[in-house]
């Protein structure tokens, strides 16, 4: 559909009366000024101040030493762990999330759709102490499910299963990662128009061929974009990791917490800010493909 042009001429060609509201329709980016100013003052300015501190020593002099420390253990280990956690947790959230979204599309039941949408919206926001507690109450050493299984002879903890490990963390993260995936990929699934499936079938394509040539190529960019979102979410999750571990798994958010707010290593807040700076860089790097993909796929989505 042709978008309206930015001239002062309406469709019939007659000059439109100018007024205050018409000024609103100006095509110059000055209309974005309120938003820009708001973001500048309440977002970019604080973040800038913080980044400055990442490069300051305790006495206030400019230094790279905080940033170079990031490449040594235990901080290097923490970055490695956090990135791995992000990548794995992203997968564990993305694939089941896609499967569920597809399953719901298949079902077609509108009320079920709304039900899943609303519970996904709520669960996507769970985390931290409440989420950790929920899992401990169900799958912890004295949890309901574990005790029930024990009573029928299956001792999961005895067999080596534990919630307090890297794997356990991924399992718990899935609780909010999967709903995020469901919420974000559903519009992309909806945009896979039924007409395309029917046309492909009419032209003789099998179901597999449809998915191979049409469905997946269209879906893949959105899938990757959503995956990157899940990566960022798992990478920077803090409260849940703290509630479930005791520092034995080095993770960047936990270390920032320890440096900026801890009781033991003091006077290293600037190192904490440098860690935060490192996190921001990595998240930005993860976001670039996301933005590029969104650019490419926008035209296929129902807009």
């Amino acid at each position, binding site marked *: 559909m042709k978008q309206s042009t930015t001239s002062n001429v309406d469709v019939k060609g007659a000059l439109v009366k100018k007024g205050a509201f018409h000024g609103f329709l100006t095509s110059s980016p000055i209309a974005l000024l309120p938003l820009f100013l708001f973001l500048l003052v309440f977002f970019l300015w604080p973040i800038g101040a913080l980044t400055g501190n990442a490069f300051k020593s305790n006495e206030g002099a400019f230094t790279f030493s905080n940033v170079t420390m990031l490449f040594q253990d235990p901080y290097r280990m923490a970055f490695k762990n956090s990135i791995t956690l992000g990548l794995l947790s992203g997968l564990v959230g993305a694939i089941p999330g896609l499967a569920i979204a597809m399953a719901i599309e298949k079902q077609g039941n509108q009320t079920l759709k709304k039900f899943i949408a609303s519970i996904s919206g709520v669960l996507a926001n769970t985390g931290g102490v409440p989420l950790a507690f929920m899992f401990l109450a169900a799958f912890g050493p004295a949890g309901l499910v574990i005790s029930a299984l024990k009573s029928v002879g299956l001792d999961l903890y005895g067999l080596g299963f534990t919630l307090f490990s890297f794997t356990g963390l991924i399992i718990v993260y899935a609780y909010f990662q999967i709903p995020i995936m469901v919420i974000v990929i559903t519009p992309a699934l909806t945009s896979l128009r039924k007409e395309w499936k029917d046309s492909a079938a009419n032209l003789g394509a099998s179901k597999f061929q449809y998915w191979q040539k049409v469905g997946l190529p269209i879906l893949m960019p959105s899938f990757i974009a959503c995956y990157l979102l899940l990566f960022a979410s798992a990478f920077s999750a803090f409260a849940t990791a703290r509630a479930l571990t005791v520092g034995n798994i080095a993770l960047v958010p936990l270390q920032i917490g320890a440096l900026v707010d801890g009781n033991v290593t003091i006077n290293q*807040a600037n190192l904490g800010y440098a860690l935060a700076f490192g996190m921001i860089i990595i998240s930005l790097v993860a976001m670039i493909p996301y933005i590029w993909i969104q650019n490419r796929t926008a035209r296929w989505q129902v807009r």
Partner: protein
Amino acid sequence: MRAQRLVVAATSAAILVSGLVVLTAPAQAAVNYCTVQNLQQAGGMDALVKAAKAEKELNIITVPRDWANYGEAIDLFTNAFGIKINDDNPEGSSAYEIQTIKTAPASKQPDVVDIGVSVLPDALGIGRKALFAPYKVATWNDIPAEWKDSNGLWYGDYYGLMAISYDASLPKAPTSIKALLTDPAFKGAFALSGDPTSSQQALMGLFAIAAANGGSATNIMPGIEALKAAKAAGNFVSVIGNSANYAAGAYKATITWDFNGPGAIATSAAAGKPLKFVIPSDVALQGTPYLQAINTKAPHCAAARLWEEFLYSQNIGKGSKDITAADKKLSGSKLFKLIMGGQNIWVAGAAHPITEAAMIKKKTIVDAPEGFAVPKTAKRIAPSPDQQTEQKAIVVTEWPKL
């Protein structure tokens, strides 16, 4: 008629006398409570209480209610003097306290802090102005010399011993740290009270474990090795040993300060999972005292100083629930003498107040709660601040490899 004249005479006499009193009394409004360094300079307890009441509020920071019975201290102070206490981030750390003083706006500054020894160097600011205002409480001389600053910038308040807290429903009671980590009966039971790279209490717990396994205040590695072995054996659960996780059944025993005992026992009972405390029979780790200080940027200077006087008072007196309306109308000094002193409130919380020795001599100390006696077999260990700094560098690198 005569009665009327008497009343008039009496009233005029009263006015005359009070006018004389006002004229001759020291100019109270001129006292700047932010620079007052002791009770005499404040003009006495009556004046201090009056000024504190006028300020109406007190900002404290990172004080959990169930820590060393602080909840009772807060309630008693508020009930008696009508001063509202604002507690910023009760579960926060000492570093958070210093960070807040450095970065928070004027209205959010804490009036007083209760910090661990490890953040003191940062607060005293080698090369820049210290963050604290000097003040010496009335019982200053009872504080041991090594735990107070000669200028009154900071002063120790209480210390604790490491105790084992455990689920009352365990088949047998863990009486020693070594047993807790190695006995198969305690499989899946033990958790550390926190992350030793960021929690002072957890770091001290690690020291205790080290001492129980051949280590010392200068050698914490045996503690880490012992935990590694305990993890392999299944006794160690790598989760934070707090009350929420305990209620969820994630662990059954931990080592924590004895002064956390009464509060934790109450919280667990309310959650339906009774908790017991015992000092281990193999190690009695004595922590360095926590320290009190008044912030130079305190927004409520008189209330801050009254709070310190209250915390260091050795009175035996009324608790928060026993204050009557009549008591509140008493003059400041009388009311102060009536209420239980902070040092004794801490005793009731199973903490060891800093003026303990003097209180025992003067016989102004209440009885400690039952169950926190130190076994004779326990090896005493008390890591100094320097030793703590040394060993925690090792912990920071070794702990993530557990």
